[in-house]
């Protein structure tokens, strides 16, 4: 009988937003156990308590330089409820557009600058496409990296036209938006959007968006890939070809549960139709089955393995407490990220979860074939998401041009108390703000970020977080000598954003990081 050696090692992970370290156990050249640590604590929620309600519009976008508009969106939705106001259609369009543009640029920058760059490293050696991957994706030099930087900043000019600047504006306020841009600015935005879409179709997708949206099965995808060289030569085609060679279609199989809060509310006078009044549908899917309705009350946060004082079970974020661990629980607690659960279950969120919740036939078929959502399918969903957004974005711009003379803002009266919940979809998944106002001040503020869902530590039942689960089975031959690229790719397929996910607590703290 042979005894398999079990090795444990730490992997600091770059090319994610913020600080993330993985601890993994390796047996027989594969990861058999994993622990994910958010290693920074920033204290934003505490900063908000006692401040004026609108201050969340300035402070929460600065939690994250990459999801800044998304935090603003969640914050203003909570305030709309607290102030009891329904923003006018034009304001809804402007808010939606800014969120869509932020999402699209994030999907492209993450895919080309942070994910595909790995294909140019040692992991690609020996593959026929490696030399080409270096030309395309080498850090800071690859022609596709340079193109991504040039094109995404053009796209972001649209947010400047709507709200002044990106990142870190606060142009959404309860009751609407602070400014009615002139028609000429919306027209300029249409041109900027079309220019970006042309680049995306020609070089990322390799075909028109309409052609891509026809795909409804794995067979369709294979036929599309075989159909023309331009399909294979785009970044989507390159990802599919190289990803399969690396086995990414068999790695990174997650929890099998998927969550979307829904996003992009459709204005009453819009010509667009969506799912449940939103362009991106809300829902929960367990085990790739049917979508069930999303119920916000089913969310609870656990802290058994997070550096916060224990409480039994999980707590809904409206009554959530974040109290630091001064000492104790060494060996059990290992992250500044809490562990949110939906109806007690781990759930993954992000672009692929949106597709699964909306029962997209192509992505459901891919998941059935791979017996779960793989790292490759997860990244594919991100890289093609813009194709599902361009049409609606342009339509809303045209509607703004048509309705420019109508209202963008409704005055609100000051309020002394109330509760509000802001739920939306960031580029990387479900984002929620839970807010209470008392005596005219913020009395409670809790945020659950997408990375808290995807990168959570274990809960009190020992249930692994989504990417902790997804890492199991990933090859890691020799942790000391090896560059753990594949493990990194599995985690990066979730588009981690740690800067958002580290809670703020009151005082105390822990002394050592080692679980």
């Amino acid at each position, binding site marked *: 009988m042979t005894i398999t050696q079990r090795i444990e090692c*730490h992997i*600091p992970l*770059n*090319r994610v*937003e913020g*600080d993330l370290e993985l601890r993994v156990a390796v047996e027989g050249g594969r990861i058999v156990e994993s622990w994910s640590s958010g*290693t*920074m*604590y*920033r*204290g*934003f929620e505490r900063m908000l308590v006692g*401040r*004026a309600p*609108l201050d969340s519009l*300035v402070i929460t976008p*600065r939690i*994250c*330089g*990459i999801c*800044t508009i998304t935090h603003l969106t969640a914050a203003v939705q909570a305030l709309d409820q607290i102030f009891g106001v329904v923003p006018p259609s034009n304001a809804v369009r402007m808010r939606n557009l800014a969120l869509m543009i932020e999402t699209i640029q994030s999907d492209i*920058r993450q895919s080309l*600058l*942070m994910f595909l*760059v790995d294909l140019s*490293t*040692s992991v690609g050696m020996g593959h026929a496409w490696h030399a080409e991957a270096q030309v395309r994706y080498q*850090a*800071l030099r690859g022609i596709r990296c*340079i193109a991504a*930087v*040039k094109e995404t*900043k053009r796209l*972001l*000019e649209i947010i400047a036209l*709507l*709200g*002044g*600047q*990106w*990142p*870190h*504006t*606060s*142009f959404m*306020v309860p*009751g609407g938006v*602070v*400014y009615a*841009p002139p028609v000429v600015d919306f027209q300029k935005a249409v041109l900027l959007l079309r220019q970006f879409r042309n680049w995306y179709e020609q070089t990322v997708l390799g075909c028109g968006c309409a052609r891509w949206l026809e795909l409804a099965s794995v067979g369709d995808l294979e036929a599309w890939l075989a159909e023309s060289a331009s399909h294979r030569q785009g970044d989507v085609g390159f990802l599919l070809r190289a990803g399969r060679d690396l086995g990414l279609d068999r790695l990174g199989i997650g929890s099998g549960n998927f969550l979307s809060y829904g996003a992009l509310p459709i204005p009453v006078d819009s010509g667009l139709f969506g799912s449940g009044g939103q362009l991106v549908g809300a829902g929960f899917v367990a085990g790739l089955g049917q979508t069930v309705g999303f119920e916000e009350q089913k969310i609870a946060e656990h802290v058994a393995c997070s550096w916060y004082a224990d409480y039994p079970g999980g707590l809904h974020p409206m009554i959530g407490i974040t109290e*630091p661990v001064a000492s104790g629980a060494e060996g059990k607690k290992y992250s500044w990220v809490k562990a949110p659960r939906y109806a007690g279950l781990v759930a993954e969120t992000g672009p692929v979860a949106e597709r699964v919740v909306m029962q997209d036939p192509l992505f459901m078929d891919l998941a059935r074939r791979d017996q779960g959502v793989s790292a490759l399918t997860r990244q594919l969903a991100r890289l093609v998401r813009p194709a599902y957004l361009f049409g609606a974005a342009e339509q809303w711009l045209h509607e703004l041009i048509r309705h420019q003379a109508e209202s*963008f*803002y409704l*005055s609100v009266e000051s309020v002394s108390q109330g509760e509000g919940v802001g739920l939306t979809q960031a580029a990387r998944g479900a984002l929620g703000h839970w807010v209470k106002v008392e005596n005219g001040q913020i009395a409670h503020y809790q945020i659950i970020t997408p990375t808290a869902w995807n990168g959570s530590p274990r809960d009190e039942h020992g249930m692994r977080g989504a990417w902790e689960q997804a890492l199991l089975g990933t090859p890691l031959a020799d942790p000391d000598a090896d*560059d*753990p690229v594949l493990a990194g790719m599995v985690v990066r397929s979730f588009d981690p954003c740690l800067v958002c996910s580290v809670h703020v607590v*009151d005082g*105390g*703290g822990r002394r050592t*990081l080692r679980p």
Partner: protein
Amino acid sequence: MSMTLYWMQNGGCGGDTMSFLNVEAPNLMDLFQQLDIELLWHPSLSSDSPRRRQECVDALLIGQRPLDILVIEGAVLRGPASTGMYDTHQGKPKKDLIVRLAHQARHVIALGTCASFGGFGVDEYVQACGLQFVRNQPGGLLGSSFRSRSGVPVINLAGCPCHPEVLSGTLTAVVTDAPLPLDDLQRPLAWYGMLVHQGCTRNEYHEYRMEENDFGQKGCLFFHKGCHGPLVGGPCNKLLWNRRSSKTRAGVPCFGCTNPDFPMSYPFFETRHIEDIPLALPNGINRAHYLVYKTMAAAAAPARLKRRETEI
């Protein structure tokens, strides 16, 4: 010979990196090439393995490899209880690594308000601080007497985020050894010696005291909506953001994010007053004279401004 640059992120949001990706003419990649800067490490952009990164840091720390420019983004987190364990790298406080690297560097750049002055988290718990300041108090992580190997203090590029052209211009000055005079807060005068207000398209309304009480209008936001444009230094309305606009042009008050006391403790969307006049007035202004001037200005306002007809 090329200059080396090492970029570290700490207690921050990554927004300064996101902002810098928007730098124009040249692009970020072309800029490094033109200036012959060798980017040793950037946490979002580099592809070196963890081991190679560690080897690089080790070589910098023992002086085996020169470190020409150290860019620090995000606040230094010293909490809890001054241990630095709120922000660690491989189990060790990052603040200790910053100190060691700073002492090897020829130039140290604090990128953004958090790295410059502490920004978010300057409290007794998180204990955030800037490299040479805590708010406007000299000291910070490195101490007020710190000088980098070229003999200059930390260059503070304040802003939340820092405007990308400010970092681009600073790197150019450093690489070409051009003079870059700093103000008392160690910010380059070229960009922080002017007011955010300069160049705002609402200046016509400001001049005649056509002030707004609510959102959604064209007038000035200084008297009632908390705008800091006439109070703080910064090039927002000269350089513009994303080539197109600025917050104040788009109706968002300036929150004074280049100031050492950002984020301020008072509400962002309200102006504090003494008898109808803002409590804080532009530098060097006599309050009595200002009151007379603004009263006369409002009386002299043309009808087109009162009717909000002038475009912004």
